[in-house]
């Protein structure tokens, strides 16, 4: 829910410029993607080039650290570099992990929703496909094969159901509390009222908001 890279919003004060500047390093971008992924119930677009860049930078850093160690650089300096690598590694791992856990939880929903499916990376799609196969087989073997004919689907309660009413979906209309980082003006939240986004003001509203501010 950071808004540092917002472009085109008028009134760019010195503070905003500063925020834009510090939030454009890849580490910050990764942190923001990680935070957004962690906070949102549905899976977001995979940041493939960011992940790629981060991994390259980590590798570069690791090489630097190794070089430092060989050159007998001050252990404190080395340890600081190492700590930085560890933190970035954690962000990266955690980011990938959260995504996989979401895929595990909502695999059937993601599979049948084309928009969500395209948000996955190639490897994630492979992971999802295999997970779906595994889970389907497990469900078939444990429950569905033992049920009467018209009740064997893992997506529908019975053949009478018109929609897939057995598929878990993320809850998108839950209320969240968020804080706007800068003045955004009035934003329509739902049909009836619009919320005032004042810098630092707290707001309790449904999740649609974080899409506009993230």
């Amino acid at each position, binding site marked *: 829910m950071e808004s540092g890279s917002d472009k085109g919003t008028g009134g760019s004060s010195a503070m905003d410029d500063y925020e834009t500047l510090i939030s454009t390093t890849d580490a910050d971008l990764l942190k923001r993607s990680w935070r957004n992924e962690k906070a949102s119930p549905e899976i977001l677009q995979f940041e493939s080039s960011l992940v790629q860049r981060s*991994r390259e930078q980590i590798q570069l850093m690791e090489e630097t650290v190794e070089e430092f*160690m060989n050159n007998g650089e001050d252990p404190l300096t080395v*340890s600081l570099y*190492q*700590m930085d690598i*560890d*933190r970035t*590694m*954690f962000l*990266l*791992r*955690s980011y*990938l*992990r959260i995504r*996989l856990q979401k895929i*595990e*939880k909502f695999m059937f929903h993601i599979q049948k929703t084309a928009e969500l499916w395209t948000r996955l990376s190639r*490897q*994630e799609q*492979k*992971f999802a496909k*295999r*997970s779906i196969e*595994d*889970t389907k*087989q*497990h*469900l078939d*073997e*444990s*429950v569905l094969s*033992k*049920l*009467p004919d018209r*009740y064997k689907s*893992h997506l529908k*309660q*019975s053949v*009478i159901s018109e929609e897939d009413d*057995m598929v878990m979906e993320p809850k998108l209309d839950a209320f969240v509390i968020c804080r706007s980082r800068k003045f955004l003006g009035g934003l329509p939240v739902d049909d009836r009222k619009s919320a005032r986004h004042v810098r630092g003001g707290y707001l309790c509203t449904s999740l649609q908001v974080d899409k506009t501010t993230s």
Partner: protein
Amino acid sequence: MYGRKAYQLVKEFTNSESGQLTGFNDDLFAQVIEDCKEHVLKLQSLLRKMQEEGSDNQTTKNADHFGALMHHLALVRNKRCLMAYVYNRAEVVQNLGWTIDLVLPLEIEEKLSISEKEYFKSHSKTLKSYMSDLDIDLAVDMVPPKDPYIKVRVLEEIGNVVLSDQSANLTRYAILFLRRTDAEQYISQGKMEELTG
């Protein structure tokens, strides 16, 4: 009462501590499946009866129609309960895949059904194959790192190993400072514990 047994099954799962599994209740599970079969027999016989009487399922709202509906709804409810039981257990099994290598400890394994054991294996493999595709180990680094080094106590004899920055003799009960990334694999295997404070 219809659906009572299925309810007990789900209740049993929710009563267990979250993240923990109790033994797979084959007995109750089979009873619910029996319930389902009974429902479908009654449902079919009611539908046949209605057909013979020439009444249309859509328009006639007589006792038979609602009887059939009850059996259908009971079936659907039973199915949902069975699926909830198996699916929620499967989620716990999925989580095991993150922390445990391919071999399950005996005390967990005996609580799983045959299909669940298979599921654990195949899902762990899926997870492993994702990690090797990306060449990144996601099973370490579960908590945000504070310090690159942590204090650990060795719980099981491990012997001489080469770690990323040193080679260490990991004898039992030794207390050492290790790189967190090195120690984590041993901690997750239960061979080491982190000393805090």
